[in-house]
């Protein structure tokens, strides 16, 4: 009994956090800071417990290890900053943000469970819940008109249906347990079966849908443009970290028999996503959509590296993703300081002349964009080294040419933004910068600047944790 409790202590801490927030809501606390502080407190407890009991397991269902811990630490730190930043947003909007914080805590439980699962049944449950929470976020906190909402929900329903059907088919076909190891054997036995192959693809598509990989990007593209900043931040920065963690894990533990055929599919999708992302970014006027298209491009690269079906390429993909996410998180954190008359600025054009009155925000945004491009000596450069080193090692020069051609294209979009910030005349009066947000922004800048110097041999430590997946 004690062992079972210990096994779930981090998740129980998060459950306690949810109860705490519900009690606060029941007593009608209306200060967003109270909710955010409560959520942060329980998140830290959960993270500490995750570190303390990092190798707990429930045979056949959950297997926590250094790999899961790696994603938990990165994700939880991101979520901690998110709680911190979103409380300022909710305060400015005079909303408690209780539902947001609770949904986020539930998401973390799902992330933890999904990453640790070694059973398709658990993955199915956790992912479906995440999928629904994602819809919940959009349903509760969308900012603009709802004309497209029905269309979006129906697409999401179709994707969820594909996921359920694929899972149900595999459950029907596989006799016995849905653990990853027997499932892999089942895939080897049925390698030529089109139905099984389709079911496997059906399991991957919803992940790509939530990540916004082309051609499954339309809904996310619309949503992120219309979502409020905290939701867009969650969908763009937090969610992808865990989803990629799960994709890498599934590719290793379950889909290995299909590696050869998946290579072509994933690399094609990756290239397509890169091209669409880079081109679309140049047509955007909304900041969040620009970031989303930028993510499409960078996720395309990660997908290409995953398609190489090699642990070193996967690790390169992870490092690339991690460094990109750091830059993107910094760029998003600046968004919380971009206000005019209490309204958060959503359009690129509204940033005109930002550098004149808010040089600090402008410069941090500039640095984060440079980091995303991969300029040394910023964090993104480490990602670029991993990427190029890997592709040259494997002789994939064509990929390199495509990647860099479209990086130039994408950079054009960033430079348009920089031009607006630094060269356009000021058209809005920007509100005073929030000191809390400034603090997070500075912290992010320090991370961006220091990561390239590999402090405490961070990359090597991350590698040790990551490679556990291959053991």
């Amino acid at each position, binding site marked *: 009994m004690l062992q079972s409790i210990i096994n779930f202590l981090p998740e129980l801490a998060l459950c306690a956090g949810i109860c705490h927030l519900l009690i606060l809501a029941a007593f009608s606390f209306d200060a967003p800071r109270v909710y955010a502080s409560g959520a942060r407190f329980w998140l830290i407890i959960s993270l500490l417990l995750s570190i303390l009991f990092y190798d707990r397991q429930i045979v056949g269902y959950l297997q926590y290890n250094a790999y899961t811990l790696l994603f938990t630490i990165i994700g939880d730190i991101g979520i901690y900053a998110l709680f911190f930043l979103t409380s300022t947003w909710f305060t400015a909007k005079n909303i408690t943000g209780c539902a947001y914080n609770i949904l986020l805590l539930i998401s973390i439980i799902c992330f933890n469970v999904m990453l640790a699962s070694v059973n398709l049944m658990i993955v199915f449950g956790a992912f479906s819940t995440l999928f629904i929470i994602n819809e919940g976020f959009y349903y509760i906190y969308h900012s603009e008109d709802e004309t497209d909402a029905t269309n979006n929900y129906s697409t999401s329903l179709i994707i969820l249906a594909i996921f359920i059907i694929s899972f149900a088919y595999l459950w029907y076909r596989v006799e016995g347990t849905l653990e990853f190891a027997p499932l892999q054997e089942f895939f080897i036995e049925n390698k030529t079966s089109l139905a099984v192959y389709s079911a496997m693809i059906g399991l991957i598509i919803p992940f790509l849908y939530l990540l916004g990989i082309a051609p499954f990007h339309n809904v996310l593209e619309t949503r992120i443009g219309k979502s409020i900043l905290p939701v867009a931040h969650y969908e763009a920065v937090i969610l992808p970290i865990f989803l990629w963690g799960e994709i890498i894990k599934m590719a290793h533990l379950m889909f290995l028999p299909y590696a050869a055929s998946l290579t072509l599919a994933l690399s094609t999708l990756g290239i397509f996503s890169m091209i669409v992302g880079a081109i679309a970014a140049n047509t955007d006027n909304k900041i969040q959509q620009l970031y989303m298209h930028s993510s499409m491009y960078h996720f395309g690269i990660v997908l290409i590296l995953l398609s190489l079906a090699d642990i070193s390429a996967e690790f390169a993909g992870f490092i690339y993703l991690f460094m990109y996410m750091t830059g993107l998180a910094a760029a998003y954190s600046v968004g919380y300081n971009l206000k005019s008359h209490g309204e958060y600025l959503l359009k690129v054009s509204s940033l005109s002349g930002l*550098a004149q009155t808010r*040089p600090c925000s402008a*410069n941090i945004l*500039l*640095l984060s964009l*440079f980091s995303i*491009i991969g*300029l*040394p*000596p*910023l964090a993104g*450069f*480490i990602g*670029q*080294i*991993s990427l*190029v*080193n890997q592709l*040259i*090692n494997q002789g994939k*020069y064509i990929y*390199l040419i495509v990647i*860099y051609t479209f*990086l*130039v294209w994408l*950079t*054009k979009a960033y*430079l*348009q933004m*920089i*031009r607006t910030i*630094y*060269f*356009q*005349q000021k058209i809005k009066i920007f509100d005073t910068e929030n000191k809390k947000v400034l603090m997070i922004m500075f912290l992010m800048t320090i991370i961006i600047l220091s990561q390239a*110097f*590999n402090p405490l*041999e961070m*990359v*090597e430590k991350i*590698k040790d944790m990551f490679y556990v997946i291959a053991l």
Partner: protein
Amino acid sequence: MISTNLLLLIIIPLLGSIFTITAKSGYIDASKNAYNVAAWTLMANIGVIFSLYLQLDPDKNGIQLVEKYQWLHLPQIDIFLGVDMFSMLLLTTLGLSFLMICLSQEEKDQKAKAIATSILLFVSMLNGYILAADIMSFYIFFAAINIPLIMLISFSEKTHKKNILIRFSLYNLIGIMLLFLAVMTIYDYKGGNIPLNTAGNLNLSGKKEYFVWISLCLAFMSRLPIWPFHYWIASMNASLHNAMVFVISNLMPLVGLYGFMRFWPNSVPKTIAVYAPYFEIICLITMLLIAVISLSSKESRYKLFAYTTVYYILYLIGVFLPTGSLKMNIGVSLFSYIMIFTVISIILGHIEQEKKRLNLHTLTSMLCYMPRATICLSLYILAGIGLPITPLFWNNFIIISEIFNNNLLLGILVVMSVFLVGLSLLEELYRLKDRAQISSELKLLQDLSRKNFIIYIAGIVCLLIILLKSLWMEV
């Protein structure tokens, strides 16, 4: 004890920039303080440079005082820093030039803090680039220089020609990517980071060899205003109004030139070296074109840009010559050249500022009431075009002689270009001193301050001493 003097040359300006950016702003002397911090930082930097001269063996060829720093394990990358006499000369002249820039700032500028920070960052990155002794750190600093430059242009320039910044940045980015791909290909081929001076012993073959060398050439060319890449750099430089930014922007070709200097002499394989004449032809066309345009241009900035470009290309042609003996001549000539164009740019900046202050329509006759500026500008322009009072004259003479020795036609065309830009600068000096449009409001013009006047004269004396010293050494 492990020496870290070279690392200090990167770290001191970096710390200075952090100190400047965190300094309090909004009070009366804030801008003065920002430039003072920058000036003290640069003085400390120059102090370290002079201490390095004591440790350096001038008779020894190649990189000396090498420092090694561990960086990444995955992939395994160690950073090497090192210097030779050529890089020491560059470090010294850059340090002195930037010091002159900071000391000559007198007016109160709201953006002083940002500009001083960017300048120090730029110096840090440029020092790193010159000190880099391995291909990876060479690339890192090559790319990193762009960040402070773009920040500097963004801060100090107004809405004029905004699209040029985008093109300029994209264009530089392509250069960065090409160098990165070339460096990573070499890294992969050799199984690790290699010293810069061994880049010629790669023994690459076939497509890989062409890929690496073409990428390297294009990457360095992207920083030089050579056809077909000249337009954006020319537009960018001609549109800059701030004298400091103009100087810094005009140092970007030095980055490309230095890249060629490090990779080309004795490094480039014969299969690639056969293409050098074609490259020389392109350089020559650009040189002549820019020189002719400068003669017809009415903008003093463009004339100065044309002057710097023609001289950079002259040095580049010197690098391509199949003789390895010109390196030090180019180094000493660059030493004077950078100081000369820095001072000319600052004085022209001062004159333009006065024109703006008094709302004048033309620069003509402006020097008539600025005796100190007249002396300085005349001396520096005359030194710049070949008055034998600086090492520029003596070393350029040797470089041009070698070009003549190698190819008579090439030599004639190079001399013609140099002559045309010299004429163009003289024409500008004449226009500034011409009394045709003299008016009473010109009496309100403010001349250079005594402090600045002394600094500039000290600069020319310094150049004269170096000329005499190098002549004695030749004897």
